[in-house]
């Protein structure tokens, strides 16, 4: 039998096993009469959709995550286009290296209060976030550069630590025994070595400057949590029937890991990578603040905060703006992570609102002729 036919047969086998694989399968044939109200509502919504479609739908319905996604996109666009990034030209008049002429009023010129309310009108002005007269820096350009640095760091960190973490976790969880023991002890070693030492050494001993040593060091040393999560998932999944079926059918280890088990852990991986990137941004900023992160002449949000912490009492804008951007980006990532977690969680149920039920959008009470009130009392947490 030619090789490709076997492969395609395996492909279809995968689909079947995935569907039999209880908790990820939303379209199990269940008797409607045996259902509780909220289950039926949930099922009637997802009937006939693929796993990806269901997740996407749930994610798009999460208002907080959608708002966060929009804000994050706005921050990225602002940081990329304003002072320019690589080939992208910037529209802002200063860059972070420009020497800005002294201005008598060094406060922020951005105003959001229109003239008819007694403000200066909606405008950006010359220095929307203020200006540092001592070093001649435009704070907007400096902050945008810091955002770019921080974004670079967390993207590198996300890619590196996901790759390493998933590989280590998958190998450890799938093979078990001495592979597991060795990899988990190695993970323990990585956990206990302080990050500060790593970045300090990466900067000094390797003679590297700029953002790459920090980004790579963070990526190579923050995968431990993800590895443990993925390992736990693999430990549970490798005992399942669909893995046994694959093994009986002579699938290779590689195939079982990548085609059968890994797709089932995507939820965990995506969610924790998002949260990891948020935490990574905070770590990078903290390292920059302590002087062990990104080194001058490069700037990151942490180094700007460190540089201007003394100015907080007199010129707070120098200190506050970079902080706002840290909080903003991390908060967005948190909400996106939360939305993703809800979307991937197979136990997640949408609680139909009281209004939905009263309006009669409840397919079950229509089907079974239940009054809407009866359905309300079945909603967990809704009526207590």
């Amino acid at each position: 039998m030619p090789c490709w036919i076997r492969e395609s047969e395996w492909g279809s086998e995968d689909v079947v096993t995935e569907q039999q694989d209880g908790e990820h399968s939303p379209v199990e044939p269940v008797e409607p009469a045996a259902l509780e109200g909220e289950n039926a509502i949930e099922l009637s919504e997802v009937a006939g959709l693929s796993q990806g479609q269901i997740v996407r739908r749930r994610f798009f319905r999460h208002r907080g995550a959608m708002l966060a996604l929009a804000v994050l996109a706005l921050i990225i666009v602002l940081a990329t286009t304003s002072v320019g990034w690589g080939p992208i030209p910037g529209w802002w008049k200063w860059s972070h290296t420009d020497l800005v002429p002294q201005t008598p009023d060094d406060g922020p010129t951005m105003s959001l209060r229109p003239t008819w309310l007694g403000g200066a009108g909606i405008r950006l002005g010359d220095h929307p976030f203020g200006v540092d007269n001592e070093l001649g820096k435009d704070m907007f350009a400096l902050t945008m550069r810091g955002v770019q640095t921080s974004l670079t760091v967390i993207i590198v960190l996300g890619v590196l630590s996901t790759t390493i973490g998933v590989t280590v976790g998958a190998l450890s969880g799938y093979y078990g025994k001495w592979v597991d023991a060795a990899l988990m002890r190695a993970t323990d070693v990585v956990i206990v070595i302080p990050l500060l030492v790593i970045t300090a050494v990466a900067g000094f001993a390797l003679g590297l400057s700029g953002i790459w040593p920090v980004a790579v060091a963070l990526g190579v040393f923050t995968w431990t949590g993800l590895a443990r999560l993925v390992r736990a998932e693999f430990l549970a999944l490798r005992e399942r029937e669909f893995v046994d079926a694959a093994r009986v059918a002579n699938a290779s280890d590689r195939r079982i890991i990548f085609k059968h088990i890994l797709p089932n852990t995507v939820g965990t991986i995506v969610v924790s990578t998002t949260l990891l990137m948020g935490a990574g941004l905070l770590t990078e900023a903290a390292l920059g603040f302590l002087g062990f992160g990104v080194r001058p002449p490069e700037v990151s949000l942490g180094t700007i905060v460190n540089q201007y912490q003394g100015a907080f009492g007199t010129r707070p804008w120098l200190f506050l703006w970079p902080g706002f951007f840290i909080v903003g980006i991390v908060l967005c990532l948190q909400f996106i992570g939360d939305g993703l977690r809800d979307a991937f969680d197979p136990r997640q149920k949408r609680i139909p609102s009281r209004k939905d039920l009263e309006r009669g959008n409840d397919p079950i009470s229509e089907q079974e002729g239940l009054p809407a009130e009866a359905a309300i009392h079945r909603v967990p947490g809704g009526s207590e």
Partner: protein
Amino acid sequence: MLIYIARRLVAGVFVMIVASFILYLLMTQAGDPLAFTLTIQNPTQRQAVIDEVTNTLSLDVPPVERYFDWLTRLVFQQDFGLVSTTQEPVSSELARRVPTTLKLVTAATVLSVIIGIFTGVITALRQYSGFDYLVTFVTFVFFSLPVFWVAVILKDWGGINLNDWLRDGAQFSTTFVVAMALLFAVVGASFAGGTAVRKAAIGAACAVIAALVLAWVSATQWLLDPGFGFFGFAVITTAVVVGVVAVMAGLANRRALIAGGVTGAIGVVSYIPMQAVFDNPINVWQLFGWLAIALAVSTAVGYIVGGYDKGQAARTAGVVAVFCGIVMVVDRMMQSWAEYSAEPVIRNRPIKTIGDGEDRLDGSFWVIADNTFSHLVLPTIALMLISVAAYTRFSRSSMLEVLNQDYIRTARAKGLTERTVLVRHALRNALLPLATIVAFDISGIISGAVITETVFQWEGMGTLFIDGLREFDPNRVMAFFVVTGAFAVVFNLLADVAYAVLDPRIRVGE
């Protein structure tokens, strides 16, 4: 079980040795430990210092050999070596810094556990309510705050500006009172259940109470010379009695209510004689002695009036006594606040932003206590923000998980009161996984808080580490690593063992 513990310990030691080897080699590559000598002008003096540091850190020996020298001395002589810059033993540095760090991080951890569990459980009980969403949002914001940024802001607003405001008479502006009243209205309304009218009424009541309290605090300049006084103490004690009895036994349980009430009454009556006791020279151990007496008296009261369920009444009365004692001590600390602020070394700027205590202060036990408090308050807040958020999330999800279990439905079905179901069946089981997390957290306590200690200039473990790293001194960094690593290994093991002991469903060592 014993085999499991032994295996874990051996693995822990193995991990520590490998990690310390890597860390030592990294430290030797981190920079030039002699860099600080460049500031010495006199060449002969500089050469002397260079020789000294070379000798202390064995810079003439290859790094790998140096590591094994260090390890041998540590294992066989418990010798951590000398600090490169000052030539003092690292162990004496450790002895000085560990208590400082414990002081800082213990307070923050204990408070965040209590507050976090409290909010988490309430949000779980009020799932999908306005309060739940509000708390969820706030925890997300806390998770996103960079500690160093918050710490600098706290130093400025909570330290300098608050001290200025206290000096200017400690009076709230009308705008502030209105804003706070609105805040309380929103929190109160989101917290209340039921119809919109009920929510609005509770929100309005919260706003009015908050506004009245703030106006009174402002008008009497209470914050300059705080204290509850006899009547304040009586009111608080009554609230404590009602609250504790409601949670622990239910107000319908007359026996428990009587036991709590009698204990509270004894507390109120003893308020005035206790002031005389507090005014005499006293120390922490005597305070604990008085607490033990209070506990003995209250449990005896509970036992006598308890009727058929003596244990429950005794427990309730004991908890009431502990709370009364805490309130009484806090009240006495408040009474010394004005005296503390007026001390010449404090100069009416009571909230401190630097260090862990004012050494030059020479006052009574209570003034010193106020001194410790005023140095602790800002760094504790900075440290607490994140861990409160974490504990809130943990206890919320843990409580929700338990509330969805079948045995909770069974408990309700057999007619238990909601209080019994929630406190006895749900809360106790929800706290089990938290025990692990707390034990886990305690292992991190000793490592201190590098950033908070740096910003507030505490001389703790975190700054020992960071200073060692800045001066490329392997001795200090390795000492920090050995102490914190040993704590981590032991407490992580304890966490797992404790979980297995508390929860029979979990079995370890398979």
